[in-house]
């Protein structure tokens, strides 16, 4: 696509720096300190789960833990807790591995409406997300320190699923948990360097939406979900 | 050890007792104190107001006055902090560059000198009274002296120390700020005075005369009976 006014703009910038224009060969220096690598370093996967669980209390997020066989039951109980009637979920390739097809079928049989994100339906997906009570996705990378699920949004996992419904459930395979943002950005950086384009939208989501704009009172639930549950699955 | 006293213009004019106390404390811990007569002001009032050229006239006089001193010690974090800025300000001045660095390197605020250079934490003072301490902004943030004053106060026999709420907040002095922006400065010192009152202390102690003039002036205006004392006054009671 087009880039407009770049030459004059950057030449002016360069003139102010009193040196010739740099168009290539700039390398990042070696930074004198790397404090980010020290955070939660050396913790086992189970210890990271504990950190995540503790942080869930800080970010007003319900924490649950189960294994693959127990996942359907925990999901069902969570959806019921939200009095969910309409569910929108990602059509994640992992749905099959985690037995979610059967789960979605079973709650449909119970009379709930389940919509799996479908590229063929175009904007219809968003319309369902708008009226859905619950959105469900997997986490791609999970950050223990901040209680964050990282979502690589794509044609299976629309941006709206984790955003527009009032309630959001993230399924967190235990193996996706890393200490903090550092490991996630490193992974994205390395993939990018290897020539794999980054997702059109990477969403780092830490609990429900909130605001403190009125007299600094914390209000949980503004534009995005009001309630969030994380389900860690031992894989 | 030979020490030259840097009195600071505020102490010279408004509180000669601070100078006396400083001299006596230094002598008590074994220093020989002289007073280079040609010293004037560190230049800060002009420097902070943007009059760098005018400020430098005073700064040069200070460098001349202390040229032959081994150590320069003053009862003010702010004024000594100013001396520490000289090397940056004379960086491109071939005549004064080295002199500026020499003065900065040998200059210390008095509590900093006692604790960090001499290794003295107890100057042998005794003081009865409830004290709260205001750490001045320039002492802590410009000069970087955070602990020395409290270290010394904690060793004063009989002193009852109580923490000043929001102690790190500026009292509103700021040199010419108090005159140029007197309304804002006035609101700041009201807040500081209220915090001092909250402590119920009999004495407000500080290491910078500017802050003490400001806070003391407000306390007096409010008719409060809290006494204002420079830290050397407390350290010289024995």
């Amino acid at each position, binding site marked *: *696509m087009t*880039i407009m*006014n*770049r030459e004059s*703009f950057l030449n*002016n*910038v360069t003139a*102010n*720096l009193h040196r010739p*224009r*740099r168009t*290539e060969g700039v390398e*990042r220096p070696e930074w004198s*300190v*790397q*404090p*980010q690598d*020290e955070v939660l370093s050396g913790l086992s996967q189970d210890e990271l789960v504990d950190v995540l669980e503790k942080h869930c209390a800080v970010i007003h997020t319900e924490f649950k833990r189960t294994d693959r066989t127990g996942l359907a039951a925990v999901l069902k109980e969570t959806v019921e807790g939200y009095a969910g009637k309409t569910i929108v979920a990602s059509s994640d390739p992992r749905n099959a591995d985690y037995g979610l097809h059967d789960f979605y079928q079973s709650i449909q049989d119970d009379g709930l409406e389940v919509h799996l994100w479908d590229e063929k339906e175009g904007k219809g*997906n968003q319309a369902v997300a708008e009226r859905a009570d619950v959105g469900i996705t997997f986490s791609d990378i999970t950050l223990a320190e901040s209680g*964050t699920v990282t979502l690589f949004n794509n044609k299976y996992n629309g941006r*709206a699923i984790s*955003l527009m419904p009032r309630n959001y459930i993230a399924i967190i395979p235990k193996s996706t948990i890393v200490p903090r943002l550092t490991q996630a*950005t490193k992974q994205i950086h390395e993939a990018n*360097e290897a020539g794999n384009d*980054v997702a*059109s*939208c990477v*969403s*780092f989501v*830490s609990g429900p939406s909130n*605001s*403190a*704009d*009125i007299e*600094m009172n914390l209000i949980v*639930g503004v*534009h*995005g979900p009001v309630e969030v549950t994380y389900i860690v699955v031992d894989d | 050890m030979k020490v030259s*006293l840097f009195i600071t213009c505020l102490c*010279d*004019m408004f509180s000669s007792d*601070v100078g006396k106390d400083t001299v006596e404390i230094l002598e008590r811990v074994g220093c020989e104190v002289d007073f280079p007569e040609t*010293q*004037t002001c560190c*230049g800060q009032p*002009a*420097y*902070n107001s943007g009059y*760098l050229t005018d400020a430098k006239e*005073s700064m040069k*006089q200070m460098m001349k006055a202390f040229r032959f001193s081994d150590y320069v010690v003053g009862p003010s974090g702010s004024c000594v902090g100013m001396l520490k800025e000289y090397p940056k300000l004379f960086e491109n001045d071939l005549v004064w560059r080295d002199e500026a660095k020499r003065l900065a390197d040998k200059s210390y605020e008095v509590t900093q000198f006692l604790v960090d250079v001499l290794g003295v934490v107890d100057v042998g003072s005794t003081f009865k009274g409830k004290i709260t301490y205001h750490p001045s902004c*320039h002492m802590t943030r410009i000069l970087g002296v955070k602990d020395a004053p409290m270290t010394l106060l904690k060793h004063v026999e009989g002193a009852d120390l109580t923490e000043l709420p929001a102690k790190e907040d*500026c009292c509103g002095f700021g040199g010419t700020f108090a005159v140029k*922006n007197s309304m*804002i400065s006035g*609101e700041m*010192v009201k*807040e500081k005075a209220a915090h001092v009152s909250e402590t119920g202390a009999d004495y407000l102690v500080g290491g910078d005369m500017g802050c003490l*003039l400001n806070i003391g*002036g407000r306390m007096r205006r409010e008719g409060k009976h809290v006494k204002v004392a420079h830290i050397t006054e407390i350290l010289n009671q024995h």
Partner: protein
Amino acid sequence: MSIKLGDASYEERVQEGVQNEFMRQAVASAQGRFRSGKQKQADKLGNWEDWRTLGEEIRTHTLENIDYYLQLLSDNVSKRGGNVFFAQTAEEANDYIQHVIKEKNAQKVVKSKSMVTEEIGMNEALEEVGADVVESDLGEWILQLDEDPPSHIVAPAVHKNKEQVKETFTEKKGYNQSSQPEELASFAREQLRQEFLSADVGITGCNFAVAESGAVTLVTNEGNARMATTIPDTQISVMGMERVVPTYEELDILVSLLTRAAVGQDLTSYVTSITGTRLEGETDGPEDYHLVIVDNGRSKILGTEFQSALHCIRCAACINVCPVYRHVGGHAYGSVYPGPIGAVLTPLLDGYEDHKELPYASSLCGACTEACPVKIPLHEQLIRHREIIVEQEKMTPRSERLAMKGFAKWGSSPAAYKMSTAMARSAMKPWTKDETVANGPGPLKGWTVNRDFPAPAKQTFRSWFKERQKGGES
């Protein structure tokens, strides 16, 4: 709106701020919360100074090579289907955005919070071409309805109380519930959801743009930036040119510094990284994407002693510790950028003429410098501004200039110094009573409105020292 807000003089603005008791209480309590949140984060990490060092190194390197990184960024945005417009001025930026709006025949534009769009006065420019612009950040929406400018760069409506918010909602939107913040927010959610769903264009700012991939990253808690980048088919991101980072690895550090320093959170609820247009098969996100990179005076700052002011990541940590801000509030600065960083940046971006008082609106206590997560020497830059105002712009009053000339003579002449200190007491005598000056002359007038001034001591130190020496000798 542009950088400069309103026509009131500095003195009028300060007075209005100082007299606004509610605002001052609200600001003081907000500052308290922000500060303790940030402190908790620093304590938790234990090596906050290392984080600051790293932040400073990253910003320094990036600014020194900003031409390279902006070129890389624009190449990558373009590769991912986005249009990139480099705008030297606010006018150029607004012209381009107007052009996109007209081309799309857009009726409704939904915006997420962005300081740079305030700076360039984008909303007014869009209204000129008939677009309905809706702010979607809760605080910004309240202010938009009330036609009031923001007073803080992170908490824009910090100066308003919930009763005022309720009144605004009632008057402008037919609200009929209580002043409970939860009810007010829930009303805003419903109202704004409809705005999102009917918007033709979404406009966001940009916290950080990642050069290596072309990703524009938005840091929010409410989720409005996600809505604005999910629903409308056309999206425009507007960024100050300095908001670029080399790679995702530096994004990590700067986002971590921002959320900790700004609101004391490990991360905000949403950190959203958008790259170009939606890909094939995707059904949300824009099909038409524009990145507008704004200079508007920033390049002039490069290569000067103020370059590090461009390191700013807009966290407001300096604002949250500033005692001057606490007492006068954001509007007193008369700029979209208030507080210490505003006092540094505003004259750089908009000239000294309208903002020459701002560099003096600081006691130089240095709390801002100490708080800054990327180590901008803010209070030192305020002194540099004062030097320019005095020595280059020559904007200070003649009386002050003469007084400082006098200071130079006094400070460089030991004899004059000695004589004046000796005479100070008698000179002050007419105004002295009980060793106190309660109503001072000339420059002391302002001081003595709120506090007493002491009479000079009976004996100067130097005369005492001299006598003591003589005594010792005899």
